[in-house]
């Protein structure tokens, strides 16, 4: 049986072990807190990704290597092992202990940071955990869930303008900034400003990295100042 067929039992067994009980006695149903299919997809994906979710009393992370972490502690077949989340990277290898500080840093930024491929719709390769506040989607919705930033979030009437700003930045190998309307998962429209930079492999534009700031809560004076700045200097 393949890893992704076994992972649901492994997660339940890990949660049971964390609660000091057996897998058959867990008091809630995993499917009430996460779509188990998403867990299977992460493990079947063979990509450096992971899925985190909350269940009563615990935070669970499942990596593509089928490792299960409960509150940062690794469990293998329901047994606690000494590796913690602060000692690993998303590809399952041990790493410098400040990785978690870096993740916390991204999450606490007053903006959403990302890296996307330079392809139609800008498929997301990385997006900070706080993207849920901005977009209504969890990071994995972009990475493995089929949500496309360009096609699903940018207002259709603004797409051409955003496209033009990114193309100009690639052409001039310089940063860009662009304001547009973003449509969240629950249909709310937000005004945002995105500041980004194309990354190149030689002359080949591979990725875009950047930050998106929600302008919704800015007062009129602040929004006008940002707008004037963007209009005066749209590509820097």
């Amino acid at each position, binding site marked *: 049986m393949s890893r992704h067929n076994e992972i*649901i*039992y492994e*997660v*339940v*067994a890990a949660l049971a072990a964390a609660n000091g009980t057996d*897998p*058959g006695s*867990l008091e809630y*149903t*995993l*499917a*009430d807190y996460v779509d*188990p*299919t998403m867990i299977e997809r992460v493990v079947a994906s063979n990509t450096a990704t992971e899925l985190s979710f909350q269940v009563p009393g615990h935070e669970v992370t499942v990596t593509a290597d089928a490792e299960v972490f409960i509150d940062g502690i690794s469990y293998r077949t329901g047994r606690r092992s000494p590796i913690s989340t602060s000692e690993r990277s998303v590809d399952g290898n041990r790493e410098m202990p400040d990785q978690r500080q870096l993740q916390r840093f991204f999450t606490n930024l007053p903006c959403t940071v990302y890296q996307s491929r330079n392809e139609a719709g800008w498929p997301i390769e990385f997006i900070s955990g706080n993207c849920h506040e901005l977009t209504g989607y969890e990071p994995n919705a972009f990475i493995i869930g089929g949500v496309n930033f360009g096609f699903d979030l940018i207002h259709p009437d603004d797409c051409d303008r955003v496209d033009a700003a990114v193309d100009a930045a690639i052409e001039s190998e310089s940063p860009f900034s662009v304001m547009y309307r973003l449509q969240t998962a629950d249909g709310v429209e937000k005004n945002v400003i995105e500041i980004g930079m194309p990354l190149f492999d030689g002359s080949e534009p591979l990725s875009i990295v950047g930050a998106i700031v929600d302008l919704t809560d800015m007062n009129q004076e602040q929004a006008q100042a940002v707008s004037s700045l963007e209009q005066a200097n749209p590509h820097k």
Partner: protein
Amino acid sequence: MMETPDGGVVQDRWEQLLRLLSARPRRQIVVSLLDAPADQRLPLPAVALTSPSQADPERIAVELRHHHLPALASADYIRWEHEPFCVRRGPRFSEPAAVMRLFQESVDQLPETLEQEWLVEAHESS
């Protein structure tokens, strides 16, 4: 795209149906319910076991409770209960039932590469 009378989309229903039938324990449950009287509750995990000699009933019971049963129930294909642990037909059971019945009726036409026993347990599919 053609819509169903209740506003759902037929294509979505097909994709949901095929996705839900992609796991063998779920197919086994549908076939077991198909073979039983319409209003009968069937005991779990027994009716989902594909081969008593190969399966670990405790492990399958965990997978059923936390994954397969909520998935089938979310599509209204089944209803299930924790205590006693059992399953019965749901309001949309006719959808997976029709597909599994078609498979069963056409089983002798399957190519050798799609061995019948991986669809459902042989003694229940014949």
